[in-house]
């Protein structure tokens, strides 16, 4: 904390921290009184005050921060110490905190001034909510100003003074007024808005810090800081934040949807993109990755963002449409269309990006022979497992002679051909969803877990993490009554698949193999149930007695934990996960 304040003070003159608050306060109160007298509308008055405060704040920031971000100064002194980048980061964090505190204190004045009007209009109902309102307005201002400054910095050199300021005003003003109008509605929930605005401010602050650091490095004539930078920790945090925290943050929304009796399939679909999006963001924000297939990565990010919006909308503004298989959720159908487009786009983007970029991102289609063998092995094991389950099921009912007819009947009902056709058609049109999960689990998290905990234990822990990640679906989608049992069965499935998929990935080093396997697993459920819609996966009732059965079915998959590779006796892990390097043609010439 002391370090934070010290770092911040090193970059900000004291007058900026004393004179500006006073100035803002005076302007804010003055404008507030003036407009308050002219207008009866509390919303208009507040918006005007917030806007004026923002302008004052912004000009202050411009004069202080122009030194930090406007030009690419070579701060040799910061580079001279290992703490340099940390101090720069802390200074920016300190400034963001200063902004929140200052904005809160300054906004408290007008909000208190119009307290009675706010009560009357039904925006707030007690003192705590008034304070909360001021805080979320303050956070909204931080969010708006940060985005404005950031975008302007990308477009303009800040020395262009007046034009840069105009751009900042337009961007920040638009965002700020949008958020203020959204917040100041009768019956609004200030506490919810605090969370929303805090998350938004946090995200944009993170991006701003990353940009400042990258500018700082660039100022020393370095395109990439490949040699000495270690970004693995940062990547891990981004992964946890997006793959897990975002996933869990969506659960309350999903819960609301379930409560309202809406179709929540879109949540389950979009969830599959979070792991890949997490890896992609981590890769884009780190410095030692080499050339990356950026177009493909950005496609993944945009798809995830669209998905999050669609999920939120499906709860807040539910819409249904009529389709060939009955009425369905509009947003789910929209997202499936998006997925198809993204799949086709991805195939094109990945084909044209070149093998170096594919290798750096771990997306190459390697070892085709082995890959095909593993997929066939998986299909065989899948049917084997099905056979075992049928045998056990029939044995329990005492009609062991019917095993064969029972087994065959699963694939010979009327219209099964269409189902199979669908499965194969779906592969090129939906693979990106399954890739979305596998890229996170197998490509990114598996090596980390295996290096940390050893190959076998790491794989099993990965399976547990993967299973727990499904917790929302277990309680609200796959099963609504028997969530705990469903979770346990999910854990069994995930650990078993973590072992087999993990083994297959280590052997083939090909992410597409596990993607196909994952695809096959999910799509076979549709063939087996004879139902194309997602309803076949929903609302199952899982009895405790089914869990031992599930374990028996997966025994063969567990056996792979005893292979030399999984016991850490095969190729060393560093070799398994090594990124291929391609010598650049220019260097070869020289």
């Amino acid at each position, binding site marked *: 904390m002391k*370090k934070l304040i*010290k*770092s911040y*003070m*090193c*970059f900000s*003159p004291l007058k900026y921290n004393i004179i500006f608050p006073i100035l803002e306060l005076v302007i804010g109160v003055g404008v507030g009184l003036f407009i308050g007298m002219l207008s009866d509308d509390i919303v208009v008055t507040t918006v005007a005050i917030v806007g004026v405060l923002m302008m004052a704040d912004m000009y202050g920031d411009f004069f202080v921060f122009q*030194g*930090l971000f406007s030009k690419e*100064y*070579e*701060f*040799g*002194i*910061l*580079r*001279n*110490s*290992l*703490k*340099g980048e940390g*101090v720069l980061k802390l200074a920016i964090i300190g400034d963001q905190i200063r902004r929140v505190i200052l904005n809160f204190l300054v906004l408290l004045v007008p909000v208190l001034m119009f307290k009675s009007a706010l009560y009357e209009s039904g925006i707030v109902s007690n003192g705590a909510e008034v304070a909360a309102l001021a805080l979320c307005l303050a956070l909204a201002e931080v969010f708006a100003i940060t985005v404005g400054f950031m975008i302007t910095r990308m477009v303009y050199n800040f020395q262009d003074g007046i034009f840069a300021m105009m751009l900042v005003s337009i961007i920040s003003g638009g965002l700020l007024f949008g958020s203020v109008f959204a917040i100041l509605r009768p019956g609004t929930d200030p506490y919810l808005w605090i969370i929303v605005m805090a998350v938004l401010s946090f995200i944009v602050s993170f991006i701003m810090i990353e940009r400042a650091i990258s500018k700082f490095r660039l100022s*020393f*004539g*370095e*395109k990439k*800081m490949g*040699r*000495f930078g*270690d970004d693995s920790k940062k990547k891990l945090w981004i992964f946890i934040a997006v793959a897990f925290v975002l996933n869990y943050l969506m659960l309350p929304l999903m819960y609301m949807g379930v409560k309202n009796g809406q179709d929540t399939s879109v949540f389950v679909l979009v969830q599959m993109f979070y792991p890949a999006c997490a890896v992609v963001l981590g890769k884009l924000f780190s410095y030692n990755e080499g050339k990356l297939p950026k177009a493909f990565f950005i496609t993944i990010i945009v798809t995830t963002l669209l998905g999050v919006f669609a999920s939120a909308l499906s709860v807040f503004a539910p819409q249904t449409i009529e389709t060939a298989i009955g009425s369905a959720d509009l947003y789910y159908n929209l997202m499936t269309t998006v997925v198809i487009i993204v799949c086709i786009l991805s195939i094109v983007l990945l084909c044209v990006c070149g093998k170096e970029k594919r290798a750096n991102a771990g997306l190459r289609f390697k070892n085709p022979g082995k890959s095909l063998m593993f997929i066939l092995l998986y299909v065989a094991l899948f049917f084997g497992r099905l056979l075992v389950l049928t045998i056990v099921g029939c044995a329990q009912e005492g009609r062991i002679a019917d095993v064969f007819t029972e087994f065959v009947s699963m694939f010979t009902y009327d219209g099964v051909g269409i189902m199979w056709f669908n499965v194969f058609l779906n592969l090129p049109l939906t693979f990106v969803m399954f890739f979305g999960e596998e890229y996170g689990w197998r490509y990114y998290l598996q090596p980390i877990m295996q290096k940390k905990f050893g190959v076998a234990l790491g794989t099993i822990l990965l399976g547990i993490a993967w299973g727990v990640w499904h917790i929302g679906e277990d309680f609200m989608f796959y099963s609504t009554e028997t969530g705990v049992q469903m979770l346990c069965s999910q854990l069994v499935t995930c650990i078993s698949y973590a072992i087999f998929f993990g083994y297959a990935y280590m052997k083939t080093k090909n992410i597409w193999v596990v993607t196909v396997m994952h695809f096959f697993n999910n799509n076979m459920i549709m063939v087996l149930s004879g139902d194309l819609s997602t309803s076949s996966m929903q609302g199952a009732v899982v009895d405790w007695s089914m869990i031992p059965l599930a374990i028996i079915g997966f025994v063969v998959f567990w056996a792979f934990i005893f292979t030399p590779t999984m016991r850490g006796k095969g190729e060393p892990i560093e070799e398994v996960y090594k990124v291929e390097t391609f010598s650049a043609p220019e260097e070869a010439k020289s």
Partner: protein
Amino acid sequence: MEFKSCIHGENIVKKYKNFELNVPVVDIPQGFATALIGENGAGKSTLLDILAGIKLDYKGNLKFFDKFDDHDREVNPEVKNRIGYEGTGNYYLPSWTIKQGREIQSLLFDNFDEKKYIDICNKLEVPADDGKKISDLSDGNNMKLKLAGVFARKTDVLLLDEPASPLDPLMRDKLCEMIRSYLLLDEGNKSVLFSTHNIADMEAVTDYAIIVENGNVVESGFSEELKEKYTVVKGDKKDEEAASKVLYTITSNNFGFEGMALTKDLEALKGLDVVTEMPTLSQVCVAVMKHNSKLYTGSIL
């Protein structure tokens, strides 16, 4: 002369658009003051930046204090803290005040001795605690602040980029004395590397010289060795043509010529009417630079 090297570099390559630094091998002897001498734009600052870790985008192997490599320097505070670097250009943020400059240094460097800093500043007659902006100081005072900062740290090797250029003659003398006393602090273990394009001013403090030209190390050695390696040769007009075949560099005037020869080549001058004498270090440096320079060496006017 045998020596232990404090920083050892091999195959250092750094490419720019119009310039390439390519140093097959460079050694900074431990316990001595080393001068990095070269023309403007010869690659002195680039080499210093690479050794100090200011520029990280290069190829090559570095070894610090006999056991650490450049990766250790960037992750191990024990190595980075032992290297004191003073740079030119935007070393400080332009909007910083003198006071902030002091505070940021105590924040950045674990071994920064604030008392010593203030003491050095007082002795050099620059304010250490002032609300005045650093960018408003004169170049000389700015350099004094930087020097105070780097001498106030507990370091084992100093890398100084053009410390003498903005200083007045008196202050240059003072700087030489400061470097001498720094080397004496822990005898045999402290080293200094400074770059300069004006060797005459720093000759008194130079133990070892590295001459850089066109991104290459063209000559290096202890100053006594260099002075023995080269000999100044003077002679009359009539011998100029014969001598020019042997001499390393030659300048002619109305009465005769003056030039530098490698001492081992002096045999070849036997029979000619020439005077030989021992050169100063700056004469050696100028001769070596002249010999390797891309600049037009004849008369310009």
